[in-house]
């Protein structure tokens, strides 16, 4: 067997190894390749920048562990930004299976930024009713969430001072992996109670949300891991998503190089065979 033949029939485990390393290494040691920022992500960033201190920022974490890879980094980047701007962060979830993860996420970022539960942020947890929760929050936030995730009564929590309903929210973002998600927040929330709304979603459903963006129903959209990476570079704290994009670049190029190599060997093999047929 010639070299070309052997290379064309290469053990695929070698390819697996290449892909595994190309993913793992950038995750452990991110390079931080420059990322082109899209206008839809920038507009969310700029809106949060423009908010005065202590404005109420509502983050609805509407996904479960299955969509964690893409939406978790978005949530972290947004929270970091909000905390740095000293906004009052009100977090919640419409997906019961995402409750534990959302709590962990919020606590982690708050600790890192030195924020205090109850004073700077609150996690309301989950409440039954799906999209009806949004409507009920629009009427009276304390009815929808009588107590926060820790079981403390929401009435009297300092961070919620002066907040009666969704009308008092300066900016809301839903990070949705499906329904209820961004669309529900527009239809049942923003449309009725007139607060500004932004969205974040997985790469798969992003194309479906662009119509909402174009018509101004949401003021910005963070799509997939790419969107998260863009937001991380805007915030200036490169995290998992930027590392993920490095890994993406590395694996894509690994595949392109592999394909180029295999074609190289393929053509040299064809030439050899052509020659041997002539002789």
């Amino acid at each position, binding site marked *: 067997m010639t070299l070309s033949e052997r290379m064309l029939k290469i053990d695929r485990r070698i390819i697996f190894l290449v892909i595994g390393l190309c993913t*793992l290494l950038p*995750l452990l040691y991110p390079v931080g390749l420059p990322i082109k920022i899209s206008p839809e992500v920038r507009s969310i960033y700029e809106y949060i920048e423009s908010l005065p201190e202590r404005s109420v920022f509502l983050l609805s974490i509407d996904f479960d562990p299955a969509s*964690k890879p*893409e939406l978790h980094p978005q949530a972290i980047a947004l929270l970091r930004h909000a905390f740095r701007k000293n906004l009052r962060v009100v977090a919640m979830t419409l997906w019961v299976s995402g409750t534990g993860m959302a709590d962990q996420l919020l606590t982690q970022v708050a600790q890192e930024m030195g924020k205090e539960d109850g004073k700077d942020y609150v996690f309301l947890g989950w409440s039954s009713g799906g999209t009806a929760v949004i409507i009920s929050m629009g009427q009276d936030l304390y009815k929808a969430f009588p107590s926060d995730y820790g079981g403390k009564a929401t009435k009297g929590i300092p961070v919620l001072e002066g907040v009666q309903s969704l009308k008092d929210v300066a900016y809301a973002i839903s990070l949705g992996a499906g329904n209820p998600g961004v669309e529900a927040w527009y239809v049942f929330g923003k449309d009725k109670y007139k607060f500004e709304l932004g969205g974040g979603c997985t790469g798969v459903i992003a194309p479906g949300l662009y119509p909402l963006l174009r018509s101004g129903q949401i003021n910005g959209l963070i799509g997939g891991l790419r969107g998260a990476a863009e937001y991380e570079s805007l915030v200036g704290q490169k995290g998992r998503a930027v590392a*993920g994009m490095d890994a993406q670049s590395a694996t*894509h190029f690994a*595949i392109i190089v592999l394909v180029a190599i295999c074609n190289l060997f393929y053509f040299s093999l064809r030439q050899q065979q052509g020659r041997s047929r002539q002789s």
Partner: protein
Amino acid sequence: MDATTLGAWMATGLTLFIFSFLYKDNPLFKLAEHLYVGVSVGYHIVKIFDSVVVNLIYKPIVEQEEIALLIPVAIGLLMLTRYLPKAAWMSRYAFAFIVGVGSGLAIPRTISAFILKQVEDTVRPLLSMAGGDGLTFSMNLLNPASNLNAIIILIGVSSVLFYFFFSIEHSGPGKVVARTGIVFLMIAFGAAFGYTVMARMSLLIGRLTDLIEFSDASYGHPTLWLLIVTVAALFLLARRRQQEPPEAH
């Protein structure tokens, strides 16, 4: 050890066992595979019981007296006649119902979403009126609605559609059109393949970040320990197989 830490160990172990499949089929993968099938079936039964038996059958019939729901229950029971050889034919009523509803629903909805909608989107004027300039032909490739792209889409749709003609021999001018169709098909397949790479890599990145997170000391380094265990097990298994006398072929 609290539930989350235990969970981290479980999740890490199962992740590594499944990944060991990339090396080769081995007992660790078989274990994870059979556990996965068992757990998923169990999960499915619980969910079906909760959503169908409790919420669609028991509650509506007993609490709201929706007697009509007894009909699908009866149809469902008919399906179980398959276990009685003499009465097995009665299960056909259930199949007939399901397939009938499915076919009926499909006809108008398929025409609407996949024929009319697609035809409507393809039929575009090849010239456009731009403000006061009168008729123009827009060449902007990046705008999917431009006239140039309208022509390209028209060629693509027609040639691929032609490729799918079964009762015409693809010869003469037909051959050229069918070949064009194949080229379009191949471009589309290549593009879709390339496009999907990113989504698949995101999944791998997700799994690996979880593993990295679980290598943290707060969980007791499950990733590290379980990785050692997995590799050692695979090594031992490979050794044992080598020591066994080769079977006669």
